[in-house]
């Protein structure tokens, strides 16, 4: 490293929220990912307006000469690593080498994985509102229904601050935390939310056979009311991704389809080790139960698999009738071809999915930092995920 005249300038911190804003607004950004190649290949930040380069920090210990010529000087450059330290280390060296507009990502990929952006999906009767929370880093989608001073959260992620904040801003108390199924790709924040706000925690009983805590039974025929105007959440039993998977119908307008039906794919049946057993359930949920529902319903899934599924405003949704034309998972006429599609050649299973399932059952109690490490990586809950 050569002598430098001045070291007064330091790289600028960028938060996950600022990065999410840039991606959704499609602002130009050059992203230097300094994690090892394996981690980069497995899971990385993507966006239409982002140019990405991967160079592990441990190849830059003696200086950044090898990459400085490839770094742009006329746009923002963001250095990203797993947790932050290495990105700051590299960002500092880039500034010393004469690159000016250098940022580093606060909290690294860990923070990116945990960040969620609320997007308003629509109005409900009597002033009620439905929000979708988009977890850009992992592709998880969660929901909040607010009505008349009460709120229900569906498929909450582990970090619950964003839900509590939105409820506060709307003067609402969280009364219900609902999981459409026992998640295998992320640690549920449902129970934590319920405990913090005195809400009920709802889980399908067939997914809760091994859980070690009390819960309310999410079952077809037992609607959940939110607010005094009684927005009814109608559970629809739709097994296949898990044996208990239950979709939620809100005001005959929105279908929260959990991990059964996505916009561009369908749920995988193998994360509890029962792919062959659940093929039939999955097919009948999609091809019988859902095909009998109103095609005008807006499908709101619990995940998305790639960024093409994001709409202009950052939300993920589609009309059910349209999905019966466009979604490859809803267009496999032959039973045997369907079995083949959902049981063989599936993408790798999500990182630590067994431990995540056991944590969601309450059987494991990992520390906060262990939980963060368990959730690293993409969700891969759909059969077409890479």
């Amino acid at each position, binding site marked *: 490293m050569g002598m430098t005249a001045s070291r007064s300038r330091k790289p600028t911190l960028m938060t996950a929220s600022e990065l999410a804003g840039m991606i959704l607004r499609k602002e130009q950004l050059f992203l230097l990912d300094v994690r*090892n190649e394996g981690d980069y290949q497995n899971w990385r930040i993507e966006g239409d307006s982002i140019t990405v380069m991967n160079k592990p*920090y*441990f190849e830059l210990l003696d200086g950044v000469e090898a990459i400085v010529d490839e770094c742009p000087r006329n746009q923002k450059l963001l250095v990203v690593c797993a947790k932050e330290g290495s990105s700051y280390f590299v960002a500092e060296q880039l500034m010393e080498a004469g690159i000016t507009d250098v940022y580093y990502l606060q909290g690294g990929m860990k923070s990116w994985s945990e960040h969620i952006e609320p997007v308003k999906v629509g109005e409900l009767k009597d002033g009620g509102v439905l929000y979708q929370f988009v977890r850009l880093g992992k592709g998880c989608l969660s929901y909040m229904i607010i009505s008349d001073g009460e709120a229900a959260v569906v498929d909450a992620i582990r970090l619950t601050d964003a839900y509590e904040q939105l409820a506060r801003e709307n003067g609402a108390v969280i009364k219900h935390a609902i999981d459409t199924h026992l998640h295998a790709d992320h640690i549920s924040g449902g129970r934590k939310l319920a405990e913090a706000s005195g809400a009920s925690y709802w889980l399908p009983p067939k997914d809760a056979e091994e859980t070690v805590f009390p819960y309310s039974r999410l079952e077809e025929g037992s609607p959940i009311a939110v607010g005094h105007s009684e927005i009814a959440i109608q559970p629809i039993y739709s097994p296949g991704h898990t044996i208990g998977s239950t979709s939620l119908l809100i005001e005959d307008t929105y279908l929260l389809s959990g991990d059964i039906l996505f916009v561009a794919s369908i749920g995988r049946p193998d994360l509890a080790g029962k792919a062959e057993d659940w093929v039939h359930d999955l097919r009948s949920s999609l091809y019988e139960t859902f095909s009998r529902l109103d095609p005008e319903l807006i499908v709101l899934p619990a995940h998305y698999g790639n960024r093409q599924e994001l709409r202009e405003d950052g939300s993920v949704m589609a009309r059910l009738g349209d999905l019966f034309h466009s979604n490859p998972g809803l267009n496999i006429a032959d039973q045997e071809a369907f079995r083949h599609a959902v049981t063989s050649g599936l993408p790798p299973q999500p990182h630590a999915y067994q431990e995540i399932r056991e944590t969601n059952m309450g059987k494991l109690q990992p520390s906060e930092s262990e939980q963060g*490490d368990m959730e690293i990586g993409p969700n891969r809950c759909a059969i077409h995920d890479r």
Partner: protein
Amino acid sequence: MKNEIRGSQVLDCRGLACPLPIVKTKKAIDTMIAGEVIEVQATDKGSLADFKSWAGNTGHQYLGTLHDGDVLKHFIRKAAPDETRDEVHFAHVIDNAELQARLQQSDKAVVLDVREHAEYGFNHIPGAISIPLGELESRWSELDARTQIYVICRTGRRSDTACQLLHDRGLQVVNVIPGMAEWSGATEASARAE
């Protein structure tokens, strides 16, 4: 299980976040002699993939990692510049496949592994005797002069030197090439590794 794997020095990187564990390891390795093994103790779980990848890129040999509670112990052997050069002098050699066949025929065949303790610890031929090349001068008399000894290392280079040393002292030795780097037969480890 008893941890029998040791390095010639231990570097404490517990509690440190990236990039510090690798920055410190690089500095420590720069002061080491080629062939020596360093044990790096770290608590950052992300360090595992980074150490493997970094060692691969620099040419140093990543031997393995032991889990001791929350501490990860990474073992890395400093590479010599001419490590992989093909320079075998000792005339009496057999290849890996031939040794594997002889081991299958007889369980009395004697294998001497002259790699460092930590290399041996993570991966060796079942029943092989471990005497690192550096200790051979003082320990050669532990070996039986009446039987044929198959001498193995990672690439055939250290075992070549060992064969010359042992042959000069009257032992019946054969150099196994290329060695453990391409060994496809059975192996075992002294301690549970990852």
